[in-house]
């Protein structure tokens, strides 16, 4: 489509790819968390009360999502502009 075959269109498509990839990987994180696959068991809290839910691998998956989204957007931009 001619509408997207210009610089602005390429940037918009790269942004779409960035958002979709982040949404997808973050969604996988949520699904795994809500099905309890990557969750810690409850236990008696001890001072300084650091929440277990914020320390498990699922928080690292957020960074995986961000980095993968940026890489995918860059790849898309390179393909469209290249």
């Amino acid at each position: 489509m001619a509408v997207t075959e210009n610089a602005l269109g390429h940037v918009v498509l790269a942004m779409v790819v960035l958002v979709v990839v982040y949404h997808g990987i973050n969604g996988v994180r949520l699904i795994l968390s809500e099905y309890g696959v990557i969750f810690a068991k409850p236990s008696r809290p001890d001072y300084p009360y650091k929440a277990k839910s914020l320390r498990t691998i699922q928080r690292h998956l957020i960074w995986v999502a961000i980095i993968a989204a940026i890489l995918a957007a860059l790849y898309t931009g390179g393909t469209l502009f290249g």
Partner: protein
Amino acid sequence: MRESTIMQLQYGTAVLALGLVTVHLLMQGVLVPYGEAVSFQHVLSVYRNVVDGALLEVLLIVVLAHGFNGLRIILLEWRQSAGWTRGVNSMVLLVTLAAISYGTRTVILAATGQVT
């Protein structure tokens, strides 16, 4: 329908969409050069292949269901009233079915060679 059932459908369509989009990108974006992949005739040939066409149809349904249910959730969190809830649920269902119908029409037209 219980909200937990709707959410199971949401997660199921999410996983299915991720898988199908990955397959679609591999087939059309990696195995085929990008310039050729987005050419009109190549896209038509994809629809005319039964397996590829079926994959695209399933992807259409899955992505629309997932997307419009997500929109429904956003709208329900935005405002709260009985009328708003009923309206959002009904409108989203209607729009989803309409979008799936229109997309399926496009797939059928392309697959049966009525688009050249």
